[in-house]
Each structure stands twice: as C-alpha cells, then as structure tokens.
C-alpha cells in the first residue's frame, strides 16, 4: 500500500452531492453517490436514507462521536492494493462473550470503479476486508462449524457470536441501524480470516487479511502513530509459525552433519598408543614427593590431542596423580592432576558403589615432538599397595564436542518451537476451541 491523498491525475474523483439534514439542517455530502444505502448526519448522527432525494430519517441517534471518534477521519484517502479508496463510513460494533462486551470498529472505503472495501480494527489489530467472490464450502459436524474451504484453502472455525452495531457515522452500502444484530462466524487461516454475517435470512461472506497499523497510518497519511496491538488477534500472523518445520528440517540436517563429522573424525584420528607403563605405590610410602619421570616417547603427526589414561585397582581407596607432559626440546609443559577413586559397600538400601578405577584426560593441541611425563602419585597415608597404569595415546577424538554441538543446535529449535506453540495457544485461548491446559493446576 502507498499514499493516495489528493486525487491522482487521470483517476476520476468520486461524484459528490451536497444536501441538508432534515433534522438539524447541517450540510451532508454524499460521496458514494448512487451506491450508498444509508448516510449518517455528521452533526446530529441521524441515520438517513441515502436513496431518498429528501434524505428520509431512518433513525435518530444523538450520541456524541467524540466518545469514540474514528481513527481514520471520514474523507481520508489512501491506496489499498493499488487502488485509491476514500473512507466514507464508520461503525462501532460489539460482541458479548461470557458476559464481557468487546468492541471493534469498521470503516467503509469506497472507490467509484472498484466499489466498497472495509477495514476493521480491534485493539490495534487491523484487517483489510472484501466481500467474498465465491461461496465457501463449510464442513460442520452436528451443526457445529469446523472448517471452511475457500478457493481450496482451509479455514478453521474460530468463533461464533452475536454482533451488535452501537454507533454509525458516514455512508454505508446497506441499510444500517444502531442496534442491528448479526450472527457472526469467523474461520481463520492466518493471516486471513473468513467471516460470515447472518442477518435474518441473508448471509454475507467476507474475506479479511491482517494488516499492520503502521501500514494503515502510512497509507492514509495519518498523524502520530497507530495504537499498539493488544494481545494476539485471531488471524495475526505468527512470527514463528512459518519457520518451525524448516527449522526442524535444518536441525535434522545439522544433526546428520554432526554425526558425519563424528564418524569422519573418529575414522580419521590415529588413536595411536605411544606410551604404556605400570607403576606401584607401596604401602606406607610418604604422601607426595615420590615424583619420577618416564622415558621419552614420540608424538608424531600434526598438532593434535593427547589422551592420558590412568587406571588403578583401588578398592575403597584413592590415588591422585600429578602429571606434567613435558616437551624434551622446547620445555613446553601441560600440568594437570587426576584422581582415581573407587568405593563400594552394602547398607540397608542394598549394595552401592561410587567412583571408577580408571580415568582419562585429553591434553589439547600438543605439537609434534619428543615428550616425557613427570609423575607424582599421592595417596592416603594409610593406603595399601596401589598398582596403577599410565597409557598415552596420540590424536584421539573428543566426543563431548558433539554432545555440546547437538545441544547448541537443539536449544534454539526447542525455544522457537515453544514460542510458536505459546503464540498459537494464546491465539486459540480466545476462541470457541480453547486449548487444554498443559499443566492442570486444579487438583494442586
């Protein structure tokens, strides 16, 4: 949409006719000449028959417009879907649901060639509405409407209620009345809404599309900013919904990629054993300071990881080993300590165990070269003889990265799904088909 304020050259201006209100004498301008059925006096708000040359009064209505003035002043022009329209009518309607009356506004737009179009506004949510070109096919069960099919698109039933007109202003293509009642049924397929209005034996179908207030303001060059939308409207497009399936598809694609990486790196890593030796920490040997160094071993290939595995046959005991992996030539060292402890027993709950008799640690990014280990074992002062084995492997994969990567991919997908589901639940909570609560708190 774009602006269309003054009449565009080449496009004829709607024919106007000036008359006077038979009740108060105020000047009335008929814009949709020959097409409007009713016109409301802007001064005393009497509803007049626009077809009657003498403007017969259909209904007197003295309520002050200033209570709820139209946000788009009548006579304002704007371009919708490439066509210039002028706002010529305004009505306020309400619907009572569970004892609460909800009000919304409808604007009648007119173009002498294209005819009438409507804008509806409810708490800052707007819809661009046109009369249906074809009758939708309704699927209902036990006279409860479920779905409507319009041009092959399925619309889910949202709400049915009795709408009342409580204020009118301007011109209308039907015989408008304050207090007019219609049975309104809405079916949604966001961002579209399909509505039927039944008045006595006549049913009118209209199709609406959600439109943002800022676009209305821009189209009609309205001053200030549009009112913020309150809550989630029935056909408001979800900012998340369209992405959910594709996000999960992308997640699946990345998960497969992660698996392929894991298989690839696992197959490609050498896992080359470069050192193996067993040691013994004898009973009563002093705690600490029993340090020694191993023979040198060669770490070949490119800069990669080194795994140091310690296993000890401890039983209700522990051993702590201070390690330093030292490059014989450069003096570069990685200093770390590892504990191996294992406890088990039996109590009133049954048997239990805690800890492990082996431990592995991965030293990161170790350049190739000749290395040795400085080992300093520690144990409890009253320890029994502990035999422990040290194994060193070159270039081992770290599976934890894949777990972290998987979680990093999963969490945003879950979050966006959760937000989408919350959005849809909020939308449908206002419908005739509210979703069942996720957590039933009634019994708590």
């Amino acid at each position: 949409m774009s602006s269309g304020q003054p009449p565009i050259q080449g496009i004829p201006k709607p024919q106007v006719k000036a008359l006077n209100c038979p009740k108060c004498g105020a000047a009335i301008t008929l814009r949709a000449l020959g097409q409007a059925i009713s016109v409301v006096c802007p001064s005393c708000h009497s509803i007049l028959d626009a077809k009657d040359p003498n403007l017969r009064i259909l209904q007197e209505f003295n309520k002050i417009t200033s209570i709820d003035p139209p946000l788009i002043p009548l006579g304002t022009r704007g371009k919708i879907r490439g066509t210039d329209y002028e706002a010529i009518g305004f009505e306020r309607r309400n619907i009572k649901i569970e004892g609460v009356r909800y009000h919304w506004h409808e604007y009648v737009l007119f173009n002498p060639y294209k005819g009438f179009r409507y804008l509806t506004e409810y708490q800052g949510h707007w819809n661009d509405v046109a009369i249906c070109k074809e009758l939708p096919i309704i699927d209902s069960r036990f006279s409860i409407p479920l779905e409507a099919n319009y041009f092959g698109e399925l619309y889910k039933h949202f709400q049915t209620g009795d709408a009342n007109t409580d204020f009118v202003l301007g011109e209308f293509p039907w015989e408008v009345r304050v207090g007019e009642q219609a049975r309104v049924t809405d079916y949604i397929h966001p961002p579209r809404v399909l509505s039927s209005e039944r008045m006595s034996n006549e049913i009118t179908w209209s199709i609406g599309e959600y439109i943002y207030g800022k676009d209305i303001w821009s189209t009609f060059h309205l001053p200030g900013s549009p009112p913020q939308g309150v809550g989630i409207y029935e056909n408001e497009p979800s900012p998340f919904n369209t992405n959910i399936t594709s996000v999960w598809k992308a997640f699946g694609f990345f998960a497969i990629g992660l698996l392929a990486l894991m298989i690839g790196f696992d197959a490609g890593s050498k896992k080359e054993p470069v050192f193996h030796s067993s040691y013994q920490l004898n009973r009563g040997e002093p705690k600490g300071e029993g340090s020694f160094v191993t023979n040198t071993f060669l770490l070949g290939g490119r800069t990669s990881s080194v795994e140091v595995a310690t296993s000890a046959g401890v039983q209700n005991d522990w051993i702590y080993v201070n390690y330093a992996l030292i490059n014989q030539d450069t003096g570069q060292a990685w200093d770390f300590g590892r504990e191996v402890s294992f406890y088990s027993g039996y109590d009133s709950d049954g048997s239990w165990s805690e800890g492990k008799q082996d431990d592995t640690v991965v030293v990161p990014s170790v350049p190739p070269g000749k290395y040795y280990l400085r080992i300093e074992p520690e144990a409890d002062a009253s320890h029994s003889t502990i035999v422990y084995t040290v194994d060193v492997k070159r270039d081992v994969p770290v599976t934890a990265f894949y777990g972290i990567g998987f979680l990093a991919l999963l969490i945003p997908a879950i979050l966006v799904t959760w937000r989408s589901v919350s959005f849809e639940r909020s939308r449908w909570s206002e419908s005739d088909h509210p979703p069942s609560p996720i957590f039933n708190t009634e019994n708590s």
Partner: protein
Amino acid sequence: MFKKLYLIYGILVLGSVAYAEYRGLSLDSMNQLKNVPKSVRDNPGSYRSVYSSYHHYTGGK
C-alpha cells in the same frame, strides 16, 4: 528471518566442532607452562606441580 539466522548459527556450530576436533582441543582443564628447565628430567622433585596438595575425596557412602 529466524531460519536464516539458524542456518548461519548451525554452520558456525558445525564449523566450531570440526575446528575443535581438527586442532585437538579439549574440555579438560590444565595449566600450560613454557620453558620448563631441562633439569627436571634429572631431578623430578625440583618441579612443583600447581595441582599438588589437592584436597582429595576420602569418603564413600
């Protein structure tokens, strides 16, 4: 919009995992030192580990 961001994010995650694996990175904590004297080879006790005197678990259930 989110899908595009997620695609970029996913590629970064996969790239990071591949980089970490290729470079041989690790999640284990350790202290890296430079220029450890060669005398450690002959006198291991002269080297002071930053992890010595660690408070060990001595319990069980």
